[in-house]
C-alpha cells in the first residue's frame, strides 16, 4: 500500500503512434524506440492532468526500467564487435545508459525538478513508487511523474525461443514492451499496489505498472470525446440536435446549447460538425472537448440516454469502473478479433462498449461505417473482423440474401434478433454470430450464439432469483443492482431466456414503444369510446396499428381522422404513431372475450 499518495492521471501505451502531433519531427526523429515509448506515456499523462509543458512547475520525474534501453546497448556492442572499437558509435553509447528516457522526457517536457532512474528488474516500478512517495512526503516535489518503460530484450527472447535449457525457468517472461506513467501527488489517500494478474507477459518486467495504469486510467481520452461528439452530431444533425453533450453528466456544458435559440443552435452544430470532420484542431473544438473531458475526469461517470424509445429520454448513469468491468467480462468472447467494424455510434451504450471501448482493450483498429445494407460489405470486411451491427440492419442483409465471404464475427444487440435472421445469417456464411442481451441501465447482461440457445449470463453479474425467475442482477464488484426489463427464466449453467417484457413494450424500427401508453392517449381524444393498439403483423410492416370505436357513430369520419392525425402529431412520437387506424363499432375479440388481431 502506498500511503498518502493519489493518482492525478495515468497513461499507458505499447506503441509510439501520434508522437509527431506533440513534438516537432526534428526533435524526435533520431530518438530510439525505448525513449519514444516513455515519452508518449509521459506527455499524455501530463496532458490528461492539464499540466502545461511550458510552465516550470516543481514536478519530479522517476523512471523505472527493468532492463533499460537494451536495443541501444546491443547497437553499441554491435558497433564494437562488427567494426572494431575505433568505429564504436558515440550516439549509441549515450542512448544506451539507463537514464536515456529520463533525458528525453526532462528535455522535451521541460522538467526541472528532482529526477531519477531506478532499475532493479521486475521490482523497479515498486521501488520507483516508494521513492516518489518519499519525495512527495518530504516536499521535495509538488508532484511526481513516475513511469515504467521497457522494450523487448531481443537476446533473451531469442534464447527463450530456442528452448535453451538453462533459461527454461524464465518461461516467456522477457517478452514485452510498453510504458505506463502516473502523475502522483500528496494526499490523504492510499494506492493499493497489490494487484492480481501481475504476470502480464506482454509487458514484463514492468507488468505491475501496466496493471496499475489500467486500473487507474480513464476510459476516455480527448480523442474519444471528439469521436463521440462527432458521431452524435452526424446522427442528430438532421433531426434532434438538442442536448448534444448530454451523453455525459455535464449540465453546465449542455447549457451552452440550451440558452440560445434554435437557429443559432443549429448553426453551432453545423460548425461543430464541420470542425470535427477536419483534422486541424481549432480553439472552439478544444474548448468543447476540454470542458467535457474535465467534467468526465471529475465525475468518472457516463450517462447513456435511452434515445427516447420509451417516450421519454432516460439517463442511465454508468461509472467508469462498471464500464471497465463490463468490457473485461466480454473480452474473452473476442480473442481472435483483429479489427472492429462498427455501425453503431459511440454515444450509444452498445457502440460505446463494443466499438470504442472494446477496440481500445483489444488494441485493434476501430472502423466506423454508416449502416447501409446495400453496401458491398465484403469489400469492407476482412477475416477476423468483429462486425458490430443491429437486428434491423441484419434483417435487410438476410432479405437481400447477402453472402458473407470473410471469416467475420457478427455482433447484434439493441433489440432481439429474430430467429429467421440469425439462422439466415449462418446460412449466408457468417462464421460466428453473437447476440448480446442488454439494457441501457445495465449494459451487456448476457450473450448467445444461436437462436435456440438461452443467453449466457456474463461473469460480472450475479443473478437474484425467485424460484427459477431471475428478478434482478447485481454486479459482483459493486452495489449496482438492476431490475431486468423482461421476465426472465434462468436455467442451468447460468443461461437464461427472456419470456416476456415487463413493461409490455414492443419495438418499432428498433425503438421501444408502449401500446398501452398510445392507447391511453388516443382514448383521451374527443369522441373516442374504446381503443385497441398493437404491433402490426410482420406481413403488414413494422409499426403500431389502432382500432377505434367512436362514441357517436354518426360522426363525420373523414373530419375525425383529420383531427386525430393532428392530435397524434402533437402527442405521439413518430415511432408511437399508429400507421394504420381502423374505425369500427366494437373492438375485435375472440369468442372467449379476449382481444384479437384485426384485418384493416
Amino acid at each position: 500500500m502506498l500511503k498518502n499518495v493519489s493518482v492525478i492521471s495515468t497513461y499507458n501505451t505499447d506503441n509510439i503512434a501520434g508522437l509527431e502531433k506533440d513534438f516537432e519531427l526534428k526533435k524526435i526523429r533520431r530518438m530510439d524506440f525505448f525513449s519514444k515509448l516513455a515519452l508518449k506515456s509521459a506527455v499524455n499523462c501530463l496532458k490528461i492532468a492539464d499540466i502545461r509543458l511550458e510552465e516550470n512547475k516543481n514536478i519530479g520525474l522517476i523512471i523505472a526500467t527493468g532492463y533499460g534501453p537494451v536495443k541501444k546497448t546491443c547497437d553499441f556492442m554491435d558497433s564494437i564487435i562488427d567494426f572494431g572499437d575505433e568505429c564504436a558509435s558515440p550516439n549509441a553509447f549515450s542512448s544506451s545508459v539507463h537514464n536515456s528516457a529520463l533525458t528525453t522526457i526532462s528535455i522535451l517536457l521541460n522538467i526541472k525538478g528532482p529526477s531519477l532512474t531506478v532499475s532493479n528488474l521486475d521490482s523497479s516500478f515498486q521501488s520507483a513508487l516508494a521513492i516518489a512517495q518519499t519525495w512527495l512526503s518530504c516536499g521535495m516535489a509538488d508532484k511526481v511523474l513516475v513511469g515504467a518503460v521497457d522494450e523487448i530484450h531481443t537476446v533473451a527472447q531469442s534464447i527463450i525461443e530456442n528452448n535453451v535449457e538453462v533459461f527454461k525457468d524464465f518461461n516467456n517472461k522477457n517478452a514485452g514492451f510498453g510504458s505506463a506513467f502516473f502523475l502522483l501527488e500528496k494526499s490523504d489517500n492510499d494506492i493499493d499496489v497489490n494487484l492480481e494478474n501481475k504476470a502480464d507477459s506482454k509487458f514484463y518486467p514492468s507488468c505491475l505498472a501496466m496493471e496499475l495504469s489500467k486500473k487507474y486510467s480513464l476510459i476516455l481520452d480527448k480523442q474519444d470525446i471528439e469521436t463521440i461528439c462527432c458521431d452524435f452530431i452526424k446522427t442528430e444533425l438532421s433531426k434532434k440536435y438538442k442536448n448534444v453533450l448530454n451523453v455525459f453528466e455535464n449540465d453546465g456544458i449542455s447549457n451552452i446549447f440550451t440558452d440560445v435559440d434554435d437557429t443559432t443552435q443549429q448553426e453551432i452544430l453545423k460548425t461543430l460538425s464541420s470542425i470535427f470532420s477536419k483534422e486541424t484542431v481549432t480553439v472552439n473544438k478544444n474548448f468543447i472537448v476540454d470542458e467535457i473531458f474535465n467534467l468526465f475526469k471529475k465525475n468518472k461517470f457516463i450517462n447513456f440516454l435511452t434515445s427516447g424509445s420509451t417516450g421519454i429520454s432516460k439517463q442511465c448513469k454508468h461509472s467508469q469502473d462498471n464500464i471497465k468491468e463490463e468490457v473485461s467480462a466480454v473480452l474473452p468472447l473476442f480473442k481472435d478479433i483483429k479489427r472492429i467494424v462498427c455501425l453503431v455510434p459511440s454515444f450509444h451504450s452498445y457502440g460505446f462498449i463494443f466499438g470504442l471501448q472494446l477496440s481500445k482493450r483489444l488494441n485493434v483498429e476501430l472502423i466506423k461505417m454508416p449502416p447501409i445494407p446495400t453496401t458491398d460489405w465484403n469489400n469492407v470486411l476482412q477475416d477476423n473482423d468483429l462486425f458490430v451491427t443491429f437486428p434491423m440492419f441484419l434483417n435487410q442483409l438476410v432479405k437481400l440474401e447477402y453472402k458473407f465471404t470473410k471469416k467475420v464475427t457478427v455482433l447484434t444487440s439493441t433489440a432481439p434478433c429474430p430467429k429467421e435472421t440469425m439462422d439466415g445469417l449462418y446460412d449466408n456464411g457468417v462464421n460466428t454470430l453473437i447476440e448480446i442481451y442488454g439494457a441501457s441501465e445495465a449494459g451487456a447482461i448476457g450473450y448467445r450464439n444461436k437462436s435456440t440457445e438461452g443467453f449466457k449470463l456474463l461473469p460480472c453479474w450475479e443473478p437474484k432469483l425467485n424460484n427459477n425467475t431471475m428478478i434482478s442482477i447485481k454486479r459482483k464488484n459493486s452495489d449496482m443492482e438492476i431490475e431486468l426489463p423482461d421476465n426472465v427464466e434462468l436455467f442451468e449453467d447460468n443461461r437464461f431466456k427472456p419470456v416476456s417484457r415487463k413493461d409490455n413494450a414492443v419495438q418499432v424500427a428498433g425503438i421501444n414503444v408502449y401500446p398501452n401508453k398510445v392507447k391511453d392517449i388516443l382514448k383521451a381524444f374527443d369522441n373516442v369510446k374504446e381503443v385497441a393498439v398493437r404491433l402490426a403483423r410482420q406481413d403488414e410492416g413494422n409499426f403500431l396499428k389502432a382500432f377505434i370505436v367512436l362514441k357517436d357513430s354518426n360522426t363525420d369520419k373523414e373530419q375525425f381522422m383529420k383531427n386525430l392525425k393532428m392530435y397524434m402529431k402533437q402527442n405521439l412520437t413518430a415511432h408511437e404513431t399508429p400507421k394504420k387506424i381502423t374505425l369500427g363499432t366494437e373492438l375485435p375479440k375472440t369468442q372467449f372475450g379476449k382481444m384479437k388481431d384485426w384485418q384493416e
Partner: protein
Amino acid sequence: MKTIISSMSCVCSLGTTLEEISDNIYNKVSVPTHITTRFESSYKNDYPVYLVPEKLLSQKKEDESYGFLFVRTCVEQALQQAKLSKQDLQKYRVGIILGTSVNASFNCFDFYKQYKKNEVSSYWDLVDYFSYSLSERLQKYLSISGLHATITTACASSTDAIGIAGQWIQQDLCDIVICGGTDELNIIPYTGFIKLLIAGKNPCSPFSKNRGGINIGEGCGILILEKEEIFKQRNMEPAGYVLGYGNCCDGYHPTTPAPDGIGLKNAVMHAMKDAGIKKENIAFINAHGTGTHDNDLTESKVFNELLKDVPVMASKSHTGHTLGAAGAIEAVLSLIALNKKEIPKASNFKEFDEEINFVPVLENTKTEKHVALSDSLAFGGVNSVIILGDKNA
C-alpha cells in the same frame, strides 16, 4: 534532515580499507594505470584507468561480478565497523539502496560476442543478469527482505542513493539503510567515453587549464544509515551525518550539463536548505570534477556564484571517475576529511584556468568546520547534492 551514518567503507584505486585509503589520499600522488587483463581495447595504451588493487580483484568468486565483489567487501567492513552482525539485521527493517551504472546494464560483452557468432559456451552471464538486480543480490547475500532500489542515474546514482536513504530513515520507512554505489571497469563505458571525446589520455586533472577529461575508475562506497534510537543502543561514535539532499534536473542536453548550471544551482540550494546550513558552514565542496571541459566549467560557474571561496576538493584526481559509485566513494572521502579535519590535496593539477577562476585544494589543508557538500552531475542533466556532517556536526 539529520541522519546518523553509523559506519562507512570504501574500495577504490586508493585502497581496500579506510586506513589504506586515508593514508594514500593524503600522502601519495595518485596516478592511473593501463588496462592489462580485463578486456581487449585498441585504446588501452592511450587512455589510462584507476583500478581497484589486484589483491581484492583476485578474490572475485566465479559466480559474482567485480561490482558485487566490491559491494560484498564494503558491506562486510561497514557492518563490522557498525558493530552489526548479519543476525542483528534480521531484527530491523533494513533497506538497501545502491547506485550503479555497469552493474545494471546488459553489458555481458563477451557473452554477446559469442551469441552473435552462435558460439555461446556458457549462459551464466545472462542468467545472472536476469536473476538479481544489484540491490536484490545484496538482499539475498544478507538474507534480508524489505525496501530496496538500484539507482541507475548514471554518474549521480550513488549520491541519490545516499540522499534517499536519509529520507527513508527520516520518514520511518526503515530502521537501517545500507546505501552507496558500485561500478566496475567495463569495455562499454570505457569505449563510450573515449568515443564521446571526453576521456583523457593523461591523469585526470580537474579544474586545471588544458585538462584532458575523464579517466575511468572503479570501486564502491557503502554507508550505513540508522535511526538514532537503534544506533544509541550500541554506544558508539557515528561516522558522520547525512544533513541534506537536493536533486534538480537541467532538462537541457543528453550528455552536457546546462552551461548556466541551473539544475546544479537549484540542487545545491535545495540541499543547503534541507540541511539548514549557510555557505559559511561549509568546510569544502567535494566537486564532481571529472576533468572534462564542460563539467568543470558548469561547476565553477555555480561554485563561484553560490559558494565563492569555499575550498574545492577534487577526488577524481585520486580515484578516476567511478561512474555510479562516484558519489558514494566521494561521500566516504569527504567524511574521512571532515573527521580528520583536513582536506586532502588534488593530484595532477597543472595550471590555473581563468575560466574556472579557482584552484582546487592543492595541499592537505586543515579545517575547523564540520560540514561538506558533495555534488554529482550525470548524463541526462541530473544534478544531485548531499550535505554531510562529521561525527560532531
